[in-house]
């Protein structure tokens, strides 16, 4: 069905609605420009416990705990934080615990800050080396559908899945 993407529409609104629909109860995040709107929507939602982390791997551990305790959670992180998560991701692999992560990219499409490039270019190989299934998306209108598919793969098939959102969508670090 055709959807009217008006000027005020932002993909974060639809993803946040999806979070409610699929009963996400915990959101763990390190602040990031590319995810700022989604993080704010989650913080404002009283049915979601939004937890600010000091480092991203804490969120991986928290997501494992969320599943062990019977809840669903989402980890929101910038690509720079993926490098911090590698050892903690061994819990998802060894225990086959679901993980749904949304990763906003830096260091790829139109990056203007060179220090972002090394980890940005390592993000997807690092996730795949840690046996996280990667869904890449570079069109705003496709983010929600991708997160929805990733959530099914994660929570219904017990897999670690990352939706990697391109800088082409977020325009974070892409000066005009």
């Amino acid at each position, binding site marked *: 069905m055709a959807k009217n993407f008006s000027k005020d529409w932002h993909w974060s609104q639809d993803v946040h609605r999806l979070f409610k629909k699929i009963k996400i*109860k915990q959101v763990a995040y390190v602040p990031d420009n590319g995810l700022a709107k989604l993080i704010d929507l989650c913080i404002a939602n009283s049915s979601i416990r939004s937890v*600010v982390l000091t480092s991203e791997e804490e969120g*991986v*551990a928290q997501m494992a*705990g969320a599943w062990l305790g019977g809840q669903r959670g989402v980890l929101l992180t910038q690509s720079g934080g993926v490098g911090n998560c590698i050892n903690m991701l061994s819990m998802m692999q060894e225990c086959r615990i679901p993980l749904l992560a949304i990763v906003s990219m830096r260091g790829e499409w139109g990056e203007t800050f060179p220090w972002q490039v090394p980890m940005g270019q390592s993000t997807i190989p690092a996730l795949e080396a840690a046996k996280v299934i990667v869904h890449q998306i570079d069109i705003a209108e496709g983010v929600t559908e991708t997160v929805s598919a990733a959530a099914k793969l994660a929570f219904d098939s017990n897999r670690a899945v990352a939706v990697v959102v391109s800088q082409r969508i977020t325009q974070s670090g892409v000066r005009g």
Partner: protein
Amino acid sequence: MENKSKTGFMLERRAVVHRILRDRGEAAVVTGIGNAVHDVASAGDNEKNMYLAGVMGGAVMVAFGIALGQLERRVLVITGDGELLAGIGSLAIIGVEKPKNLSIIVIDNEAYGATGNQQTHTGRGVDLVGIAKASGISNASLITNPLELEKGIPSFFQDPGPYFSVVKVGTKSSPRINAPKDGTYVSRRFRAAMTGKNF
């Protein structure tokens, strides 16, 4: 040899953990990597134990994620000083989020016991109780003898959380036991015990 820890603390880690777990009731227990796994498992394997035999630094945050979904149940972390130091930022999160049903018990031998008793930072002056309190976990205690342990144990399970305690123990570790080490088995058994559902 100079960095080998030889603490003179009187409490013995395995006896401490067994004594604590005698009063656990329906509590869930998350262990940190290393001796904590064996100390907890040797008290009697339990479906409400989540043994973390890897992911150093993750025990507090795994337990926090569990605690949010298990509000009627006490969730107890039993971990070592080395493991806690590897995830020290977690204390800032717990101090901010203040989960009422979470207790963190650090079995502090001031050494990396699993790798040859090399001294940790707690043996060189780092004060974990001080860090916990400064992070906003006001209910934090230091235990160094059997009397303090007996006095502290009811608080582990009944005080409003978050609760934090450091139990100073000697460096002697008891033999490793045959703790369940398959993560998929342990995690599914644990989740079923928490939720009452197999899937």
